[in-house]
Protein backbone atom coordinates (compact mmCIF):
# COMPACT_ATOMS: atom_id res chain seq x y z
CA UNK A 1 0.00 0.00 0.00
CA UNK A 2 1.29 3.41 -0.86
CA UNK A 3 2.05 5.76 2.01
CA UNK A 4 -0.44 8.52 2.59
CA UNK A 5 -0.68 11.91 4.20
CA UNK A 6 -3.59 13.27 6.12
CA UNK A 7 -4.69 16.51 4.53
CA UNK A 8 -6.92 19.15 6.09
CA UNK A 9 -7.98 22.18 4.16
CA UNK A 10 -10.01 24.63 6.19
CA UNK A 11 -11.19 28.18 5.84
CA UNK A 12 -12.44 30.26 8.74
CA UNK A 13 -16.02 29.68 7.77
CA UNK A 14 -15.94 26.01 6.84
CA UNK A 15 -13.99 22.82 6.28
CA UNK A 16 -13.13 22.26 2.63
CA UNK A 17 -11.37 18.93 2.67
CA UNK A 18 -10.22 16.36 5.17
CA UNK A 19 -8.86 12.96 4.30
CA UNK A 20 -5.96 10.85 3.12
CA UNK A 21 -3.94 11.73 0.05
CA UNK A 22 -0.82 10.59 -1.77
CA UNK A 23 0.42 14.00 -2.67
CA UNK A 24 -0.47 17.64 -2.21
CA UNK A 25 0.72 20.52 -4.28
CA UNK A 26 0.20 24.09 -3.19
CA UNK A 27 1.24 27.56 -4.33
CA UNK A 28 3.83 28.49 -1.71
CA UNK A 29 5.06 32.05 -1.54
CA UNK A 30 8.52 31.05 -2.69
CA UNK A 31 7.26 28.77 -5.41
CA UNK A 32 5.09 25.79 -6.08
CA UNK A 33 5.36 23.05 -3.46
CA UNK A 34 4.78 19.36 -3.92
CA UNK A 35 4.43 17.51 -0.64
CA UNK A 36 4.77 13.76 -0.30
CA UNK A 37 4.48 11.68 2.89
CA UNK A 38 7.39 12.07 5.32
CA UNK A 39 8.17 15.54 4.18
CA UNK A 40 10.02 17.39 6.93
CA UNK A 41 8.24 20.04 8.98
CA UNK A 42 7.55 23.17 7.03
CA UNK A 43 5.69 26.38 7.56
CA UNK A 44 4.94 28.74 4.71
CA UNK A 45 2.58 31.34 3.44
CA UNK A 46 0.46 30.60 0.41
CA UNK A 47 -0.14 32.71 -2.64
CA UNK A 48 -3.54 32.81 -4.30
CA UNK A 49 -3.78 29.80 -6.54
CA UNK A 50 -4.69 26.18 -6.84
CA UNK A 51 -4.20 23.44 -4.30
CA UNK A 52 -4.16 19.99 -5.87
CA UNK A 53 -4.81 16.97 -3.72
CA UNK A 54 -3.96 13.60 -5.25
CA UNK A 55 -6.15 11.01 -3.61
CA UNK A 56 -5.36 7.34 -3.30
CA UNK A 57 -5.96 5.68 -6.64
CA UNK A 58 -4.83 8.63 -8.67
CA UNK A 59 -7.95 10.75 -8.51
CA UNK A 60 -7.29 14.45 -8.10
CA UNK A 61 -9.19 17.23 -6.36
CA UNK A 62 -8.70 20.92 -6.95
CA UNK A 63 -9.24 23.79 -4.57
CA UNK A 64 -8.78 27.46 -5.10
CA UNK A 65 -7.20 29.39 -2.24
CA UNK A 66 -6.84 33.15 -2.01
CA UNK A 67 -3.83 32.87 0.27
CA UNK A 68 -3.25 31.50 3.73
CA UNK A 69 -0.85 29.34 5.67
CA UNK A 70 0.49 25.86 5.11
CA UNK A 71 1.88 23.64 7.82
CA UNK A 72 3.54 20.33 7.10
CA UNK A 73 4.20 17.59 9.64
CA UNK A 74 5.61 14.29 8.39
CA UNK A 75 2.19 12.73 7.91
CA UNK A 76 -0.04 15.72 8.20
CA UNK A 77 -0.67 18.69 6.00
CA UNK A 78 -2.79 21.55 7.25
CA UNK A 79 -3.84 24.34 4.95
CA UNK A 80 -5.43 27.33 6.64
CA UNK A 81 -6.90 29.44 3.90
CA UNK A 82 -7.98 33.04 4.14
CA UNK A 83 -11.52 33.61 3.11
CA UNK A 84 -11.25 37.23 2.26
CA UNK A 85 -8.68 39.28 0.47
CA UNK A 86 -6.47 40.68 3.13
CA UNK A 87 -4.44 43.79 3.04
CA UNK A 88 -2.43 45.41 5.76
CA UNK A 89 -4.06 48.78 5.33
CA UNK A 90 -7.52 47.23 5.48
CA UNK A 91 -6.75 45.70 8.86
CA UNK A 92 -5.33 48.99 10.01
CA UNK A 93 -8.49 50.84 8.98
CA UNK A 94 -10.67 48.38 10.84
CA UNK A 95 -8.49 48.76 13.94
CA UNK A 96 -8.67 52.53 13.76
CA UNK A 97 -12.43 52.42 13.40
CA UNK A 98 -12.75 50.15 16.43
CA UNK A 99 -10.59 52.47 18.50
CA UNK A 100 -12.45 55.56 17.43
CA UNK A 101 -15.82 54.11 18.23
CA UNK A 102 -14.64 53.48 21.74
CA UNK A 103 -12.97 56.84 22.17
CA UNK A 104 -15.78 58.95 20.82
CA UNK A 105 -18.16 58.06 23.56
CA UNK A 106 -15.71 57.60 26.36
CA UNK A 107 -13.55 60.65 25.93
CA UNK A 108 -15.08 62.51 28.85
CA UNK A 109 -15.65 59.68 31.27
CA UNK A 110 -12.26 58.08 31.76
CA UNK A 111 -11.44 57.05 35.24
CA UNK A 112 -11.38 54.22 37.64
CA UNK A 113 -13.50 51.18 36.88
CA UNK A 114 -16.10 51.09 39.60
CA UNK A 115 -16.10 47.55 40.84
CA UNK A 116 -18.38 48.17 43.75
CA UNK A 117 -21.00 49.69 41.51
CA UNK A 118 -20.62 46.99 38.89
CA UNK A 119 -21.04 44.31 41.48
CA UNK A 120 -24.05 45.97 43.04
CA UNK A 121 -25.75 46.36 39.70
CA UNK A 122 -25.04 42.84 38.62
CA UNK A 123 -26.16 41.45 41.94
CA UNK A 124 -29.38 43.36 41.56
CA UNK A 125 -30.00 42.10 38.05
CA UNK A 126 -29.26 38.54 39.06
CA UNK A 127 -31.52 38.80 42.09
CA UNK A 128 -34.27 39.97 39.78
CA UNK A 129 -33.77 37.03 37.50
CA UNK A 130 -33.76 34.63 40.41
CA UNK A 131 -36.93 36.15 41.77
CA UNK A 132 -38.64 35.72 38.45
CA UNK A 133 -37.48 32.13 38.35
CA UNK A 134 -38.78 31.51 41.87
CA UNK A 135 -42.11 33.13 41.12
CA UNK A 136 -42.49 30.93 38.10
CA UNK A 137 -41.83 27.83 40.12
CA UNK A 138 -44.31 28.90 42.78
CA UNK A 139 -46.91 29.50 40.13
CA UNK A 140 -46.37 26.13 38.60
CA UNK A 141 -46.65 24.28 41.89
CA UNK A 142 -49.70 26.31 42.94
Amino acid at each position, binding site marked *: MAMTLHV*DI*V*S*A*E*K*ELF*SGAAEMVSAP*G*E*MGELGILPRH*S*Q*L*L*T*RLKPGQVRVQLQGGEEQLFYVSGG*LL*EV*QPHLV*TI*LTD*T*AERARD*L*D*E*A*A*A*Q*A*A*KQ*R*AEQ*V*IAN*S*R*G*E*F*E*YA*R*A*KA*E*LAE*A*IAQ*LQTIEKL*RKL*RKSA
Partner: protein
Amino acid sequence: MAGAKEIRTKIKSIKSTQKITKAMEMVAASKMRKAQERMRAARPYASKIRNVISHLAHAHTEYRSPGLVEREIKRVGFIVISTDRGLCGGLNTNLFKAATLAMQQWRTRGVEIDLCTVGTKAFQFFRRLRGNVVAHVSHLGDAPRFEDVLGPVKVMADAFAEGRIDAIYLVYNEFVNTMSQKPKIEQLVPVTAEVKDAAPAHRWDYIYEPDPKELIELLLRRYGESVVYQALVENVACEMASRMVAMKSASDNAGTLINELQLIYNKARQASITQELAEIVGGAAAV
Protein backbone atom coordinates in the same frame (compact mmCIF):
# COMPACT_ATOMS: atom_id res chain seq x y z
CA MET B 1 -70.20 46.31 36.39
CA ALA B 2 -67.24 48.14 37.82
CA GLY B 3 -63.80 46.95 36.82
CA ALA B 4 -64.97 44.61 34.08
CA LYS B 5 -63.96 46.96 31.33
CA GLU B 6 -60.53 47.48 32.82
CA ILE B 7 -60.01 43.77 33.10
CA ARG B 8 -61.04 43.34 29.51
CA THR B 9 -58.53 45.92 28.29
CA LYS B 10 -55.83 44.36 30.41
CA ILE B 11 -56.49 40.92 28.94
CA LYS B 12 -56.36 42.39 25.48
CA SER B 13 -53.05 44.10 26.11
CA ILE B 14 -51.50 40.95 27.57
CA LYS B 15 -52.73 38.99 24.60
CA SER B 16 -51.00 41.32 22.18
CA THR B 17 -47.80 41.14 24.23
CA GLN B 18 -48.05 37.38 24.14
CA LYS B 19 -48.30 37.49 20.37
CA ILE B 20 -45.06 39.44 20.22
CA THR B 21 -43.18 37.17 22.58
CA LYS B 22 -44.42 34.12 20.71
CA ALA B 23 -43.23 35.56 17.42
CA MET B 24 -39.86 36.43 18.95
CA GLU B 25 -39.56 32.91 20.28
CA MET B 26 -40.17 31.44 16.88
CA VAL B 27 -37.75 33.81 15.16
CA ALA B 28 -35.07 33.08 17.77
CA ALA B 29 -35.57 29.34 17.31
CA SER B 30 -35.00 29.47 13.59
CA LYS B 31 -32.07 31.85 13.95
CA MET B 32 -30.56 29.60 16.56
CA ARG B 33 -30.51 26.67 14.17
CA LYS B 34 -28.62 28.74 11.63
CA ALA B 35 -26.26 30.10 14.26
CA GLN B 36 -25.51 26.58 15.44
CA GLU B 37 -24.65 25.55 11.92
CA ARG B 38 -22.29 28.48 11.56
CA MET B 39 -20.74 27.56 14.87
CA ARG B 40 -20.12 24.03 13.68
CA ALA B 41 -18.74 25.26 10.38
CA ALA B 42 -16.24 27.53 12.12
CA ARG B 43 -14.99 24.79 14.39
CA PRO B 44 -12.58 22.93 12.04
CA TYR B 45 -10.47 26.03 11.34
CA ALA B 46 -10.20 26.88 15.02
CA SER B 47 -9.27 23.34 15.97
CA LYS B 48 -6.77 22.93 13.12
CA ILE B 49 -5.03 26.18 13.89
CA ARG B 50 -4.91 25.13 17.53
CA ASN B 51 -3.12 21.98 16.45
CA VAL B 52 -0.63 23.94 14.42
CA ILE B 53 -0.01 26.31 17.33
CA SER B 54 0.56 23.38 19.66
CA HIS B 55 3.05 21.90 17.19
CA LEU B 56 4.71 25.27 17.06
CA ALA B 57 4.89 25.50 20.83
CA HIS B 58 6.78 22.21 20.83
CA ALA B 59 9.15 23.05 18.04
CA HIS B 60 12.54 24.41 18.99
CA THR B 61 12.14 27.42 16.83
CA GLU B 62 14.98 29.78 16.16
CA TYR B 63 12.63 32.67 16.77
CA ARG B 64 10.67 32.74 20.04
CA SER B 65 7.58 34.82 19.64
CA PRO B 66 6.44 36.84 22.68
CA GLY B 67 3.07 35.20 22.06
CA LEU B 68 4.50 31.88 23.24
CA VAL B 69 6.39 33.07 26.29
CA GLU B 70 4.82 33.96 29.62
CA ARG B 71 6.00 37.25 31.01
CA GLU B 72 5.42 39.28 34.12
CA ILE B 73 1.95 40.76 34.04
CA LYS B 74 1.44 44.44 34.65
CA ARG B 75 -1.51 45.10 32.41
CA VAL B 76 -4.02 42.74 30.84
CA GLY B 77 -6.46 43.09 27.99
CA PHE B 78 -9.96 41.70 28.06
CA ILE B 79 -11.99 41.11 24.92
CA VAL B 80 -15.60 40.89 26.04
CA ILE B 81 -18.12 39.52 23.58
CA SER B 82 -21.74 40.33 24.29
CA THR B 83 -24.99 40.67 22.38
CA ASP B 84 -26.26 43.81 20.71
CA ARG B 85 -29.81 43.43 21.89
CA GLY B 86 -31.47 42.57 25.16
CA LEU B 87 -34.46 40.36 25.94
CA CYS B 88 -32.28 37.29 26.17
CA GLY B 89 -32.58 36.35 29.82
CA GLY B 90 -29.56 36.58 32.07
CA LEU B 91 -27.05 35.89 29.32
CA ASN B 92 -25.18 39.17 29.39
CA THR B 93 -25.60 39.73 33.10
CA ASN B 94 -24.01 36.42 33.95
CA LEU B 95 -21.20 37.07 31.51
CA PHE B 96 -20.45 40.50 32.93
CA LYS B 97 -20.50 39.08 36.41
CA ALA B 98 -17.85 36.51 35.52
CA ALA B 99 -15.79 39.15 33.72
CA THR B 100 -16.02 41.63 36.57
CA LEU B 101 -14.99 39.01 39.06
CA ALA B 102 -11.92 38.08 37.04
CA MET B 103 -11.02 41.72 36.55
CA GLN B 104 -11.33 42.44 40.20
CA GLN B 105 -8.90 39.65 40.99
CA TRP B 106 -6.38 41.24 38.65
CA ARG B 107 -7.11 44.60 40.19
CA THR B 108 -6.31 43.48 43.71
CA ARG B 109 -2.91 42.39 42.43
CA GLY B 110 -2.38 45.87 41.06
CA VAL B 111 -2.80 44.92 37.43
CA GLU B 112 -4.33 47.46 35.08
CA ILE B 113 -7.01 46.45 32.63
CA ASP B 114 -7.74 47.42 29.06
CA LEU B 115 -11.06 46.46 27.56
CA CYS B 116 -12.17 45.71 24.07
CA THR B 117 -15.89 45.25 23.73
CA VAL B 118 -17.83 43.48 21.01
CA GLY B 119 -21.56 44.16 21.05
CA THR B 120 -23.53 47.11 22.37
CA LYS B 121 -24.39 45.60 25.73
CA ALA B 122 -20.82 45.13 26.88
CA PHE B 123 -19.90 48.58 25.69
CA GLN B 124 -22.76 50.23 27.56
CA PHE B 125 -22.04 48.28 30.69
CA PHE B 126 -18.33 48.95 30.87
CA ARG B 127 -18.67 52.52 29.75
CA ARG B 128 -21.15 53.26 32.47
CA LEU B 129 -18.78 51.77 35.00
CA ARG B 130 -15.81 53.65 33.61
CA GLY B 131 -13.86 50.72 32.31
CA ASN B 132 -10.96 51.62 30.08
CA VAL B 133 -12.49 50.62 26.74
CA VAL B 134 -9.85 50.93 24.04
CA ALA B 135 -11.73 49.37 21.14
CA HIS B 136 -15.28 48.55 20.30
CA VAL B 137 -17.36 47.03 17.53
CA SER B 138 -21.06 46.38 17.45
CA HIS B 139 -24.00 45.70 15.16
CA LEU B 140 -22.38 42.68 13.60
CA GLY B 141 -25.76 41.07 13.00
CA ASP B 142 -26.73 37.45 13.31
CA ALA B 143 -24.14 36.23 10.84
CA PRO B 144 -20.88 37.89 11.81
CA ARG B 145 -18.17 37.76 9.18
CA PHE B 146 -14.57 36.89 9.80
CA GLU B 147 -13.52 40.38 8.77
CA ASP B 148 -15.60 41.85 11.58
CA VAL B 149 -13.21 40.72 14.28
CA LEU B 150 -10.04 41.93 12.60
CA GLY B 151 -10.22 45.51 13.86
CA PRO B 152 -10.61 44.86 17.59
CA VAL B 153 -8.20 41.92 17.52
CA LYS B 154 -5.58 44.07 15.86
CA VAL B 155 -5.90 46.79 18.47
CA MET B 156 -5.30 44.25 21.24
CA ALA B 157 -2.63 42.29 19.38
CA ASP B 158 -0.68 45.47 18.62
CA ALA B 159 -0.84 46.49 22.25
CA PHE B 160 0.48 43.04 23.14
CA ALA B 161 3.24 43.16 20.57
CA GLU B 162 4.35 46.58 21.75
CA GLY B 163 4.38 45.37 25.34
CA ARG B 164 1.62 47.66 26.56
CA ILE B 165 -0.37 44.66 27.72
CA ASP B 166 1.08 41.36 28.89
CA ALA B 167 -1.82 38.97 28.37
CA ILE B 168 -5.11 38.93 26.51
CA TYR B 169 -8.22 37.24 27.82
CA LEU B 170 -11.35 36.47 25.89
CA VAL B 171 -14.73 36.53 27.64
CA TYR B 172 -17.73 34.98 25.92
CA ASN B 173 -20.63 32.61 26.37
CA GLU B 174 -20.02 28.98 25.66
CA PHE B 175 -22.87 27.12 24.01
CA VAL B 176 -23.47 23.97 26.03
CA ASN B 177 -26.95 23.25 24.77
CA THR B 178 -30.17 25.11 24.13
CA MET B 179 -31.02 25.35 27.81
CA SER B 180 -27.61 26.18 29.13
CA GLN B 181 -24.94 28.70 28.24
CA LYS B 182 -21.85 29.16 30.33
CA PRO B 183 -19.74 32.29 30.63
CA LYS B 184 -16.18 31.42 29.75
CA ILE B 185 -12.89 33.23 30.19
CA GLU B 186 -10.06 32.04 28.03
CA GLN B 187 -6.46 33.15 27.82
CA LEU B 188 -5.63 34.02 24.26
CA VAL B 189 -1.98 35.00 24.46
CA PRO B 190 0.52 34.03 25.65
CA VAL B 191 -0.53 30.59 24.50
CA THR B 192 -1.18 28.58 27.64
CA ALA B 193 -0.08 25.15 28.72
CA GLU B 194 -3.54 23.84 27.90
CA VAL B 195 -2.88 24.28 24.22
CA LYS B 196 0.69 23.01 24.50
CA ASP B 197 -0.21 19.45 25.36
CA ALA B 198 1.75 16.22 24.85
CA ALA B 199 5.51 16.60 24.98
CA PRO B 200 7.41 15.77 21.80
CA ALA B 201 10.03 13.04 21.61
CA HIS B 202 12.79 14.88 19.81
CA ARG B 203 13.97 18.35 18.94
CA TRP B 204 12.96 19.67 15.60
CA ASP B 205 12.30 22.91 13.85
CA TYR B 206 10.34 23.96 10.83
CA ILE B 207 11.66 24.88 7.46
CA TYR B 208 10.39 28.39 6.98
CA GLU B 209 9.52 30.03 3.74
CA PRO B 210 10.33 32.85 3.80
CA ASP B 211 11.04 34.22 7.28
CA PRO B 212 10.39 32.55 10.67
CA LYS B 213 9.52 35.69 12.58
CA GLU B 214 7.01 36.90 10.04
CA LEU B 215 5.40 33.50 9.67
CA ILE B 216 5.04 32.79 13.35
CA GLU B 217 3.62 36.21 14.04
CA LEU B 218 1.18 35.74 11.18
CA LEU B 219 0.17 32.36 12.48
CA LEU B 220 -0.40 33.71 15.98
CA ARG B 221 -2.41 36.59 14.61
CA ARG B 222 -4.60 34.23 12.63
CA TYR B 223 -4.95 32.07 15.69
CA GLY B 224 -6.22 34.98 17.74
CA GLU B 225 -8.61 36.03 15.04
CA SER B 226 -10.02 32.58 14.58
CA VAL B 227 -10.54 32.03 18.29
CA VAL B 228 -12.29 35.38 18.61
CA TYR B 229 -14.40 34.66 15.54
CA GLN B 230 -15.36 31.26 16.91
CA ALA B 231 -16.31 32.86 20.22
CA LEU B 232 -18.37 35.47 18.41
CA VAL B 233 -20.30 32.87 16.43
CA GLU B 234 -20.82 30.82 19.55
CA ASN B 235 -22.09 33.85 21.40
CA VAL B 236 -24.68 34.48 18.68
CA ALA B 237 -25.93 30.91 19.07
CA CYS B 238 -26.10 31.48 22.83
CA GLU B 239 -28.00 34.70 22.36
CA MET B 240 -30.60 33.04 20.19
CA ALA B 241 -30.98 30.03 22.47
CA SER B 242 -31.26 32.23 25.52
CA ARG B 243 -33.77 34.52 23.84
CA MET B 244 -35.82 31.57 22.72
CA VAL B 245 -36.03 30.24 26.27
CA ALA B 246 -36.73 33.66 27.75
CA MET B 247 -39.48 34.35 25.25
CA LYS B 248 -41.02 30.95 25.75
CA SER B 249 -41.31 31.52 29.46
CA ALA B 250 -42.67 35.01 28.81
CA SER B 251 -45.36 33.55 26.56
CA ASP B 252 -46.20 30.93 29.18
CA ASN B 253 -46.42 33.56 31.88
CA ALA B 254 -48.69 35.66 29.72
CA GLY B 255 -50.89 32.60 29.24
CA THR B 256 -51.30 31.98 32.97
CA LEU B 257 -51.89 35.68 33.56
CA ILE B 258 -54.64 35.70 30.96
CA ASN B 259 -56.28 32.66 32.51
CA GLU B 260 -56.26 34.25 35.94
CA LEU B 261 -57.63 37.52 34.67
CA GLN B 262 -60.31 35.71 32.71
CA LEU B 263 -61.41 34.00 35.92
CA ILE B 264 -61.57 37.29 37.78
CA TYR B 265 -63.45 38.83 34.89
CA ASN B 266 -66.03 36.03 34.84
CA LYS B 267 -66.52 36.29 38.58
CA ALA B 268 -66.99 40.04 38.37
CA ARG B 269 -69.48 39.63 35.56
CA GLN B 270 -71.45 37.02 37.45
CA ALA B 271 -71.41 39.08 40.63
CA SER B 272 -72.80 42.06 38.81
CA ILE B 273 -75.58 40.00 37.22
CA THR B 274 -76.50 38.53 40.58
CA GLN B 275 -76.54 41.97 42.10
CA GLU B 276 -78.78 43.34 39.35
CA LEU B 277 -81.19 40.46 39.77
CA ALA B 278 -81.29 40.98 43.51
CA GLU B 279 -82.03 44.64 42.96
CA ILE B 280 -84.89 43.85 40.57
CA VAL B 281 -86.36 41.28 42.91
CA GLY B 282 -85.95 43.63 45.84
CA GLY B 283 -87.64 46.43 43.85
CA ALA B 284 -90.54 44.19 42.84
CA ALA B 285 -91.03 43.07 46.43
CA ALA B 286 -91.18 46.67 47.60
CA VAL B 287 -93.96 47.48 45.11
